[in-house]
């Protein structure tokens, strides 16, 4: 895999294309064109210059989650560790569900999954190129052979629960690779293939898309609830505030 991967941003973008995109453009406007932008090398230097803005490919896919549809069974987490590592271990899962059994719905669950950021801070932060962008798929992932264990990627992730994690059993960083490298899964993974978490989720609370989602502070948290869900008595409005009885009546079931 290493030979086809992007370990240095300089490798992939001709120098003459670098100066055409402003910082504002890459932050706000790049989703639709299928290309993500990052500041090549400048984060290490601590300052930004327009001519150092470099394009990198967008990820070939993204995981969307709906925590209001999640039943909290953690099957996705078990599928993740199983397919990547051949064992069951919630701590090795690259998708994390955090719950409080006593909290009020919808604040009882939080799902954190890697966003495959257009501007992947984990990739920028990696001093060795271990955290990189896969050339073929655009997936942000780890070349474990190059990982020196500094955990800069873990710290660089801006999610409140880092999408990059430290695998304390195998001693390397890891993150969601959309099942690109799943030695314990028969089906092909990655964009265009199977994602274990999507395949096993009992309620359909995780979905895969090739379109870059709108990014908010909540991550790729979307509404995956339909009329069938309302018929079960659960709210289908975005906020999860409409009573199940009203939702069921509205569903026409």
């Amino acid at each position, binding site marked *: 895999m290493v030979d086809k991967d992007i370990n240095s941003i300089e490798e992939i973008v001709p120098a003459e294309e670098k100066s055409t995109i402003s910082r504002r453009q890459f932050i706000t406007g790049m989703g639709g064109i299928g290309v993500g932008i990052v500041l090549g090398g400048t984060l290490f230097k601590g300052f930004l210059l327009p001519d150092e803005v470099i394009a990198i490919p967008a990820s070939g896919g993204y995981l969307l989650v709906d925590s209001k549809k999640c039943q909290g069974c953690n099957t996705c987490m078990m*599928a993740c560790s199983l397919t990547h590592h051949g*064992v*069951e271990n919630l701590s090795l899962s690259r998708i994390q569900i*955090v719950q409080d*059994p*006593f909290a009020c719905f919808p604040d009882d669950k939080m799902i954190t999954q890697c966003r495959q950021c257009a501007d992947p801070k984990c990739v920028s932060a990696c001093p060795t190129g271990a955290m990189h962008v896969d050339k073929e798929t655009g997936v942000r992932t780890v070349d474990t052979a190059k990982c020196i264990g500094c955990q800069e990627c873990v710290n660089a992730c801006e999610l409140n629960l880092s999408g990059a994690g430290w695998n304390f059993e195998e001693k390397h960083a890891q993150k969601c690779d959309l099942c690109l490298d799943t030695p314990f899964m028969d089906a092909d993974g990655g964009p265009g293939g199977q994602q274990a978490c999507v395949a*096993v989720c*009992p309620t359909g609370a995780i979905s895969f898309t090739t379109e870059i989602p709108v990014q908010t502070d909540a991550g790729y948290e979307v509404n995956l609830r339909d009329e069938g869900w309302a018929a079960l008595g659960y709210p289908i409005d975005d906020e999860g*505030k409409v009573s199940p*009885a009203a939702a069921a009546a509205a569903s026409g079931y």
Partner: protein
Amino acid sequence: MATGGYVGKILRVDLTARETSVIETEKYTEWGGGHGIGSALFWDLCKDKTVSGRDPGNILTFMTSPLSGTMAPSASGRVEVQGIGTAGYPVNWFTRSNFGGRFGGQLKYAGWDGIALEGKADVPVWLDIINGKVEFRDAADLWGKDTQETQKLIWELKENEEHGWTEIGKTRDSGRTTQKPAIITIGPAGENQSSLGCLVHDAGNAAGQGGFGAVFGSKNLKAISVVGTGSIPVADPAGLLNARIWAKEEYAAAPGQRVEPNGPTFGVDPAPVFLYAKNPDGPMGPQACQGCINGCRARFDTGIANESSCQETSMYKAFDTLAHGEGTDASYIATDLVQKMGVNSYELMQGIGYLYALSKMGVLGKGLEIDTDLDMSRVGEADFAIDLITKISNREDIGEDLADGFVRAAEKWGRLEQDYAIGILDFPYWGYANHGYDPRAETEWGYSSIMGDRDMNEHGFNANFWSVIKHMMAGLEMPVSAEEYAKITTAKMVPYDDDPNMVDYSTENIYSESFAKLVVWQRHYTRFWKQSALYCDFRYPDFTNYNREDNVGITGDGEPKFWNAITGQDITFLDGIELGRRIWTLDNAIWILQGRHRDMVQFASYIYDIPLENSLVGPYYPMAGKVDGQYAYINVLGRSIDRDGFEEWKTHFYNLEGWDPASGWPTRETLESLNLAFVADALTEAEKLGGE
């Protein structure tokens, strides 16, 4: 050694000495997991099996299975609890309960297949398990707290409980997790050693029946907290994933969609099971135990009665409706309170009915023969529920009389025989509350309970009752005829699958050998696949599954498929059932040492003398049964159990088990055929071996 689903160690805890030691799981894997290992551990570790449940010599086990903490569907989250109970009459049998949630997974991630508790701490303690590190911690600040407060306080004690990766050791490689420690705890009822005391985990998981809360209380053990970051080895990871996807695609409801109604089976949709008179009308989200294929619970916008489902939501229904003509918030408050105080809702529901009847008879009330401060005019109101639950939990007033259960209270009041005779004390088997699936109608529930040690709480055959009822209520046609149901079901009941009469609930058949085969099959199936492998009772067995064109459920194919993928073994469905026979026989040997004899195996008198006229839902109790030689859905109400018929049935049962029908005790030949010669030796020494 960690291999194929087992993580290799069982934690032995001596509370008296405050010492822990390790039992190699390998020594017990011949028993499978869960109940099988628990019974074998109890046999080995409990030196005097006749002690009371509250004796320090009682051994209490918590066992997982190789499937716990894995993605085997609806088999990952349950933990089997065993030991001598404090509930039941006339003997506190060696008994069992289990609970769902995520405790079993965390225990295994911490490196433990189970826990065996013995002794008694000098002062209240709680057990803090972080991976391989086990600490006895002072519970002075937790004692007196309810189950919710206790769990929150323990979580607060942990570092960095904000939703982040929690480092659980001193180095970066000692493990990290986002998960809160899983805690099993008692509330005040358990602390005060009431036999109504439960073990509670998270908001709505409880080991309620058997009175294990009082066992915790007697051992001065408030709670066990566990968090782990280790791995569970899986023999065939890709095979396990494929099997899970197969189960989802072939048998489960389409994700997030409503499906044809059924009883508790594999193919139902992830809608919560509410039995409130008026269901909560605020927004809610789904909630499931670890690894469930489709959860049965919810959390609410109010947080009240989070994770409560099924029986605990019906606990106050009748009284609430009686007082108000409809369901009110009183039901939610009562349900929420039993979870917090850790009180057994089964016993409480039937018990309130008994107290209400006594008050109507002018026997119980302020200044009456049974004198209590309870204001019986408030039955059905929230304040009555709060008052009664508080009195039980604190063992105050009538709570002191009820501390050994309602049946023993009736005995203490000198009312046992007369209240059984008129049927107001609805506790038909071993002093346990009627589950609602009355022995007179749903005979297998009664038979399995009385041949065992408690209200059996196994819904395998009961699922069809609910299926028919739900279709009746919705005005829908049943997807399968009674004939098809019987054919699909009995075909799965190996090794008795050549007998199509096993599920015939007609009065002519319920004393037959065929009906004994049904109960024997159920005892063996559940002892291994449900209580040892720990497949959830609410999803297995899956006889009929309406998501499939042929309506044939996953049972028989599913259970061994997941077991083998995880363990690397190659056992058949029947192999598991035969191991269940061995475990069931070992359990019976323990009961025999506690005093069990065929003559004691009797229902309360009203089961024989008063015909049953209503089910939970009215004057209908549909089960499969033969009319003029053809299966139909028949109404099994209007009958009682015939005493002589039941004796005939018991003889069939003992003969099928290979036990002496005169005493109900196993023979040496049977025990040796099950590789239980050591049990035969123990029964010989106790002069309780069955005659050949």
